[in-house]
């Protein structure tokens, strides 16, 4: 018999107050509790929203509504203000995204590919719009817009929504361009393509996932923008998020709930698509840049 085969002396369980940490069942149970707590934190408000959307009557002691109905859906979907807000939302957000792309993508490419004085400072300063409470910025811009006769106009709303899209539309595509290895561009030059052809055939397609994701985020940012649109647009231009203020204040809860669901639908759909783009095959499996 060797000493190696001797069992280790056991510590008496009673001596340690935290003995239960070593019980696997306990640890598993704790994990489950944590997951449930987190998901209820995220999902319960959404569930409440759903319940409210289909509630007819929901008073104090009831855990679920006393009666359900679709009448508020009917009201919301046939309401003229809602229709006009949906129309304005879809008139502004895509245009804002497009303009953001036109302004920001060349900037993103420059930040990624060229070294110029003040490059870092400029790149960081894009965050400035997000560094302060937006409402202050918007009020300041509003005084400017008054002078330029942009208050209450379509283009005024587009411009104010543009502010919130700039960071995502520059930073994410810049990272996308960064990830395209210089060698891939060199190889295309070597194969006979001029600089423009290299950009269209190599650089742009490879940075596309990042650009698509950035566009989605810009669209969502514009689509959900409420403060600036409220200040600049109302009362003539009322988009869905600004209408939300009116609806929540003036109508019963189900209306607000239904409208929230309508408002979040495009964001949820776009984020799901964006997620697929982020996980898309060749970026993950392909050429890793230096």
């Amino acid at each position, binding site marked *: 018999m060797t000493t190696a085969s001797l069992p280790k002396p056991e510590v008496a369980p009673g001596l340690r107050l935290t003995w239960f940490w070593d019980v696997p069942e306990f640890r598993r149970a704790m994990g489950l509790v944590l997951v449930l707590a987190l998901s209820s934190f995220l999902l319960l408000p959404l569930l409440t929203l759903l319940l409210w959307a289909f509630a007819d009557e929901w008073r104090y002691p009831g855990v679920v509504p006393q009666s359900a109905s679709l009448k508020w859906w009917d009201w919301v979907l046939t309401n003229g203000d809602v229709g006009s807000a949906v129309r304005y939302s879809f008139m502004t957000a895509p245009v804002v995204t497009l303009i953001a792309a036109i302004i920001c993508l060349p900037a993103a490419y420059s930040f990624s590919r060229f070294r110029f004085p003040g490059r870092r400072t400029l790149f960081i300063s894009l965050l400035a719009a997000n560094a302060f409470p937006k409402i202050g910025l918007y009020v300041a811009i509003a005084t400017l817009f008054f002078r330029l006769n942009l208050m209450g106009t379509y283009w005024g709303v587009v411009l104010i929504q543009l502010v919130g899209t700039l960071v995502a539309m520059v930073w994410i595509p810049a990272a996308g361009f960064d990830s395209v290895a210089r*060698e*891939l561009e*060199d190889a295309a*030059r070597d194969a*006979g393509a001029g600089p423009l052809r290299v950009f269209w055939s*190599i650089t742009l397609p490879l940075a596309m996932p990042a650009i698509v994701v950035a566009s989605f985020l810009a669209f969502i940012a514009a689509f959900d923008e409420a403060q600036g649109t409220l200040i600049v647009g109302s009362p003539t231009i009322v988009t869905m998020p600004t209408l939300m203020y009116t609806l929540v204040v003036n109508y019963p809860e189900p209306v607000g709930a239904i409208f929230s669901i309508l408002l979040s639908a495009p964001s949820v759909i776009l984020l799901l698509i964006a997620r697929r783009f982020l996980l898309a095959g*060749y970026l993950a499996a392909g*050429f890793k840049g230096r």
Partner: protein
Amino acid sequence: MARLELDHLVKRYGRGGEPAVQDLSLEVNDGEFVCLLGPSGCGKTTTLRLIGGFLKPDAGDVRIDGTSILKEPPERRPTAMVFQRYALWPHMTVWDNIAFGLQVRRRPRDEIARRVEAALELVGLPAMGRRYPAQLSGGQQQRVALARALVLEPRILLLDEPLSNLDAQLRVHMRTELTAIQRRVGITTVFVTHDQEEAMSIADRIAVMNAGVLEQMDSPEEIYAQPATLFVATFIGTMNRLDAHVDAGWVRAGPFVAALPDIGRLNAGSGASVDGALVAGVRPEDLVLETAGQGVPARIDSVVDLGHYRRVTLTAEGTSLLAFVPRSEPIPTDRLTVAPRRLLLYADGHLLATSEGGVKRSGSNASGSTGGGSPSISAISSAIEPGKGAIPLGPWPVRK
């Protein structure tokens, strides 16, 4: 098919720094396979990028068949490059990768199809056209990169360490395959590598570079046998470095002494003084180990059996030496003497002379020698081929 000339190329990165490439001149003949060999940072990849047009030289010229291509951007140069990490476009299929250059040139569709198929056939991947690069192994990606370069029928093929990302076995295999394809196509090729074995095995000629300077350009055999500089001598293969000096018509190199007949001629020819400190080099396989031979008595420190040869470290008169002894030869243990079969002599880092045979210890009591003078002298002269002099003088240093 084409002839490539580099004429006094200079390339500096940044201002005032040491040039990455210094006054580089070399010629690559039509259909020749030349390796640019050197340690990392020696300027070999910079040179390749200067030829490919990705860098602009600060001075000098790059000519193909006598015509300068310096003003041409990369896309207009008749060169094609295979990049170190292949640089295949991950969003295109293999077929599209190879076809890209032809599509840019607006070739007719059926011609593109024919040439892409032929290129895939050439590199041995006929059925892989529809795959994406990420679906291929390293070796296959390498072949696709080669096909992509060759399909454009460039006049010069540039290869930037194309085998360095492959595992050892595949690398040796691709080496043979690469040379076979190069011979079949007959294309003028410049190949950059830091792997001397690779360079020795595939190149027609090797250009050894160090710190931006071309040290020597010669056939692999010549590079190994007559390294023009001390750098080449120690970089290629293994070399025993011995401190040496000239002493009254003799060269004393570590424990060995060799006759140096014509110091005046040496001085006149090289411009370098042979009176100062010299360095002698002896290849480990050029050390002869004998029992009571005419060499210097030595003691064996260690023997490592490496299969086809043995690596012997020994000490002779306080100098430690490395010898490679073939498996077929015994290693004497009793009254061991060591003598160099061949010795290279360097002044200021440049080759001054080589001596073939007959280098041994002076003043040793070698018996059985005949002829006049001290026994050692006769021993030396008897070992030298007649008519060649005591030390057949090697090529004079290449630079003035």
